[in-house]
């Protein structure tokens, strides 16, 4: 439900509906639950013979990926297509950006082509926010990952997976393990879990891969020892070791990392017997997770991918809804009988 006391913010319109989706931070629990409820309904669309609904017919979604991605880009593309939108995938490497066109010029050109939404992934923190605020305020901007800042749709698809598999967040303990320092996923996950009422969120990792003030992320507890940190948790969220982001030698070796922080049967045994194992992908087998765990009965890694489509359908349609719904009292549709 739209919040009645919504503060004006970049992400929300005057009625408290989403008009951009940039960050979990600042969104109320009721809105996150509305996203999950809507996504739940879209799961049934994925089970139909014709996996398509006409909601965004006539709208154009441009996927702007300035950074490599397989899962996020393809699931956004599928989500938009299942909503009947037209999809433009801009390959930045072969676009005029490589000829020196500025980002601002490129986006304004796309706006002139009457695109309705931009799905943006960028290596710089704050890129989607910048575009929403300064470049294309009339276009719905969805953050598909910005630097080490936020990856809100990943967080929401993980929340949907947890809610569908575990039934909820309250009275449950969550552990996020690995490269917290470089992880936009971790930041968004912690915000989403705490907003949705998680009892305890732990972060686990080596000191070199945790921020200098680990509690600044909003987590409840910090562990450097994985076995201790996994004790009695309900959900284990593994993070990928972001090799491409590591500019300095923070680790002795991948082998050493696996020994200390790789998820194995031995370490998973410390969590509750029915604990879920999650990973945003792509997984580095034998670096942060053992193959037998990734493919094992507690793993919901592939369900996360499927639910990612439903969550992105929900977010695309809700932000488009927030853009199109008349903010002022436009003529209501007359449904009174004649």
């Amino acid at each position: 439900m739209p919040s009645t006391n919504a503060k004006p913010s970049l992400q929300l319109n005057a009625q408290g509906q989403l008009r951009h989706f940039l960050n979990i931070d600042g969104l109320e629990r009721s809105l996150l639950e509305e996203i999950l409820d809507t996504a739940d309904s879209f799961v049934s669309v994925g089970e139909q013979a014709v996996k398509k609904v006409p909601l965004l017919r006539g709208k154009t979604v441009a996927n702007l990926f300035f950074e490599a991605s397989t899962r996020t880009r393809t699931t956004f593309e599928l989500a938009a297509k299942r909503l009947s939108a037209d999809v433009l995938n801009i390959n930045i490497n072969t676009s005029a950006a490589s000829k020196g066109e500025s980002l601002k010029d490129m986006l304004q050109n796309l706006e002139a082509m009457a695109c309705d939404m931009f799905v943006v992934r960028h290596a710089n923190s704050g890129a989607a926010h910048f575009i929403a605020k300064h470049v294309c305020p009339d276009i719905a901007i969805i953050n598909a990952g910005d630097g080490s800042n936020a990856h809100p749709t990943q967080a929401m698809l993980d929340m949907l997976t947890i809610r569908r598999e575990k039934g909820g967040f309250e009275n449950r303990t969550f552990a996020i393990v690995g490269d917290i320092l470089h992880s936009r996923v971790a930041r968004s996950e912690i915000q989403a879990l705490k907003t949705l009422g998680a009892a305890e969120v732990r972060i686990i990792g080596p000191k070199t891969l945790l921020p200098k003030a680990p509690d600044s992320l909003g987590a409840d507890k910090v562990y450097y020892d994985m076995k201790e940190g996994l004790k009695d948790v309900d959900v284990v969220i593994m993070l990928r070791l972001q090799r491409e982001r590591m500019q300095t030698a923070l680790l002795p070796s991948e082998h050493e990392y696996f020994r200390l922080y790789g998820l194995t049967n031995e370490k998973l045994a410390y969590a509750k017997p029915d604990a879920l194992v999650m990973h945003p992908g792509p997984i580095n087998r034998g670096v942060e997770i053992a193959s037998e765990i990734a493919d094992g009965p507690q793993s919901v890694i592939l369900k996360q991918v499927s639910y990612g489509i439903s969550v992105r359908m929900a977010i695309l349609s809700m932000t488009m809804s927030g853009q199109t719904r008349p903010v002022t009292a436009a003529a209501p549709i007359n449904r009174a009988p004649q």
Partner: protein
Amino acid sequence: MTELNNIGQLLQKVTTELKDYISSQSLDNPAMVGIHTGGAWLAQHLHKNLAFEEPLGTLDISFYRDDFSSKGLHPQVKPSSLSFSPENRHIILVDDVLMTGRTIRAALNEIFGYGRPQTVTLVTLIDIQSRELPIQADIVGQSVALSKQERIKLRGPDPLNVEIHHITQQQD
């Protein structure tokens, strides 16, 4: 002021007429689908009284509405649930109130998303004669013409009741 027959009479009428219709049209092994929320309540009643074998299907047509660009997404969308494929089946589509015909247009689109039915029979408790699309019901409990200040509301699911509200300001 418009008068409605009591709910018992209305339910009896649609139940009997639907039973006769299924038999006269030789609809073999029909399957029933109700539209959220009132249509699903009515469908539960019919499904039980006519002893349909297939579990009842329910549709939320929010994703198929034609007013998304002016009204946005309904904030409380419920999942649709169809445990059977409508492919080559005789579908009994149930809604509480038939007014403009737009809900039925959207529901037909959604059903076709799951498969191509052989026939679709439309059942409604109340037919308000203010159609905007060429859609008619096969089985109707009662036809009424409402004034501009009158709205129909079905309450349920147990007990079902249908009443006419008089509105003082524009609602939707």
